[in-house]
């Protein structure tokens, strides 16, 4: 709430955060009579790790779906890289440089890890369906180039050993990593992670945290994530938005949020009879 800068800022660990990349202005999203999100505004800056937290049913995933273009809010504006975004289909949003992972993993179970990650390159492929099908000319050279990108991501996320394994055979923690790999394959400017650590054990969480930081560091990718594990959120993110019952109740650095009375109340509960 306190920082209202336009020229970026420097984080505690010395990273330089740039100007506003995405701005949500007075977003309201209703499903029939139910208001999932009510009049929320916040921004995401170039190069930062931005977390959205809140208790169950607070509207976090709905918010992420608004960013990814899956839901179109009834009110409010979404600004991306200095331009107001008209209502768009999710695939159009993807071509703008926004990629995401899902809370309940959405991979092609029967396909190999490699093929799954290759699908992440789809938005960048130019050759026609026909030439891809007959595997000739431009399609051939194109696939080689894309494969190289994908192999770099496989190396980066340390999943070489499962390159050819069908995703269905993998344990949960690795599937999550493959999903991250697929999102990265799109070379996004903004990466949306919907509960990247849900259901993981401590070791897997530590690995995933490391990868998220590395992605931000190595590729300079801006990251917006939803997470339940408070420890993870506070350690990873530069700024945090807190939602409760579809409203924004806090916004700021992890320390500011941690000491925000409204946030403490939302998480610990307050008695209603006073």
């Amino acid at each position, binding site marked *: 709430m306190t920082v209202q800068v336009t020229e970026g800022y420097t984080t505690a660990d010395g990273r330089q955060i740039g100007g506003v990349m995405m701005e949500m202005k007075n977003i309201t999203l209703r499903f029939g009579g139910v208001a999932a999100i009510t009049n929320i505004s916040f921004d995401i800056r170039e190069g930062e790790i931005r977390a959205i937290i809140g208790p169950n049913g607070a509207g976090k995933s709905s918010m992420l779906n608004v960013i990814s273009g899956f839901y179109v809010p009834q009110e409010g504006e979404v600004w991306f890289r200095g331009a107001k975004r008209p209502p768009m289909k999710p695939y159009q949003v993807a071509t703008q440089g926004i990629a995401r992972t899902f809370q309940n993993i959405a991979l092609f179970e029967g396909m190999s890890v490699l093929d799954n990650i290759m699908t992440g390159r789809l938005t960048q492929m130019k050759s026609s369906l026909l030439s891809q099908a007959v595997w000739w000319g431009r399609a051939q050279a194109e696939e080689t180039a894309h494969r190289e990108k994908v192999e*770099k991501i*496989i190396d980066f996320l*340390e999943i*070489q*050993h499962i390159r050819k394994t069908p995703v269905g055979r993998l344990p949960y923690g690795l599937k999550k990593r493959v999903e991250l790999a697929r999102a990265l394959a799109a070379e996004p400017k903004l990466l949306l992670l919907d509960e990247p650590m849900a259901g993981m054990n401590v070791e897997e969480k530590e690995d995933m945290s490391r990868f998220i930081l*590395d992605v931000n*560091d*190595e590729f300079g990718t801006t990251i917006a994530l939803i997470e339940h594990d408070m420890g993870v959120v506070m350690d990873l993110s530069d700024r945090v938005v807190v939602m409760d019952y579809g409203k924004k109740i806090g916004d700021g650095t992890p320390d500011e949020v941690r000491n925000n009375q409204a946030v403490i109340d939302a998480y610990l509960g307050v008695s209603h009879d006073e």
Partner: protein
Amino acid sequence: MTVSEAPSGPASIPALLARNVANHGDKPAYREKEFGIWQTWTWAQAADEINAMAMGFLALGLAPGDHVAIIGRNRPQLYWSMVAAQMCGAIPVPLYQDAVSEEMAYVLDHCGSRFVVCGDQEQVDKILEIEGKVPHIEQVIYVDKRGMRKYDHSRMNAMADVVAEGRAGHHRFEAELAKRTAALDYNSTCVMLYTSGTTGKPKGVVLSNRNIIETSKNSSEFDHLRPGEEVLAYLPMAWVGDFIFSIGQAMWTGFCVNCPESPTTMMTDLREIGPTYYFAPPRVFEGQLTNVMIRMEDAGRFKKWLFDKYMAVARRVGPDILDGKPVSGADRFSYWLGNILVYGPLKNTLGFSRVRVGYTAGEAIGPEIFSFYRSLGINLKQLYGQTEASVFITQQPDGQVRADTVGVPSPGVEVKIADNGEVFYRSPGTFESYYKNPESTASTKDAEGWVATGDAGFFEEGTGHLRIIDRAKDVGKMADGSLFAPKYVENKLKFYPAILEAVVFGASRDFCTAFINIDLTAVGNWAERNNIAYSSYQELSQHPRVLEMIRGHVAEVNQSVAADPMLAGCQIHRFLILHKELDADDGEMTRTRKVRRKVIEEKFADLIAALYGGKSEIYTETEVTYEDGRKGAIKATLTLADAAVAPAQRMAAE
């Protein structure tokens, strides 16, 4: 050949490299899988890289006689850095990459290295952590750039930059490098390797060019190794075996060294490369066999039947066919059929289709495991060696391979057995000295060059093969005076797939007891098939049905131990299953995974007391060290069990 004379051929590793470039410069020398593709360097290309690297080292101020520590997984660049260091007149000191930083601090401090070459960020972090304790480290060089951008680079360089600088400055450094390389002779130190240290602190074993080159030459000739061989370099670079196979023999014969993509892809890479010359400790062979058996348990009924039928054929006639003994035509036909249906595909899956010579050493291998591989037609042999001998002391010639011996003395090696049963050897590979430790050198190597191995053994009558019983210092007496050889019993226990590790106690006691470690892969799979639910290693280890299974194994071992009148006293009367795996991080094992008895005895004194005290249950707390060096404690209540003891012919022990 006489040891003292200078050789007619190349007298150093860099000289061998130059010879290989001249003889077959366009043949592959190194391969590494990266980004899913095998990258190849020919001898000429590798030599060019090594040259540039050496000049880069000179640019950073590497002095003759310096020790260069090298830490990381097997990668061509790290092998090259060893040769590059030698070219500069420095001495490479490879370290175990999984060592925690405190262990590294001791070795780095002891060898006084100014230069450290690290594989990746993880190793660099360890070095930075101990920088305060080891102030003489001046330069850190890393190979993998990942995650390294933000580090303070005032005394740190990426390997690629070092190589580039060496290339750019070749006019300045060429003369100096040539001078230093030319100064290398048969007596100069080739490498210094630290022993894993079953007892006390690691010792730096100094090996000269003579040691390495003579040994490589003799052993390569023994097995008729050729320039076309392929090996997979996946064993720790700090281990003498890897140095001999991937540098010594590879340079001598000029064969190709293949480095896996990552430790986890080792099995896939093994299959893709199909090595012709292969080395693995028994543990790896055991692991592979366990995997095969687990997968066959899950296979369909027809496949299982086919597998069992033809494996029976292989067990019966396979080893004889391999040894060239006479076998009937009908058996040959079934074996041929089995090869098409079962053995061939299986060997292909395991990556052993092309193995011409395979070795196992370090520990005793189970006879079933050994004969399984041999019956498939894989020429797996055993050798006996140690760091101080540049590996080879004895090895098995083709056609004379058995599970219970370690073969005949290697070419050029003399072996004698002392009165107390300890094995001594003398060879061209015998180490020069322990670094900065003349007392240990003197107590290990006598004036005539005989080295005490510390192992007790004897030559078998008739065949002349050496048999090793146990560590000489571990062989003891029980309270009643009968012979106590713990390893003999432990090895028998470890041959069961369910048992990963065993430690037997009994010196000066009335009877023997044992700690058992279960094998999580094997027991976990067994539990799954038998609908046994468990949530942790600890819970599974203490499950009553697991205990019953292990009790059965112990009873069987007792039966077989009782059959040997000399060792009948070593039967295990009571045992327990440990709640944690014995681990090198906790100091319970060496980095080469040999148990440290003293440490275990002290650490688990309460458990041993309980075993001898006759209790049936004990509560215990154990400190554990995590991979990152943090400490924690695990608490458990362990069941102590009795095992059936076979009636022994005790009279014979008197």
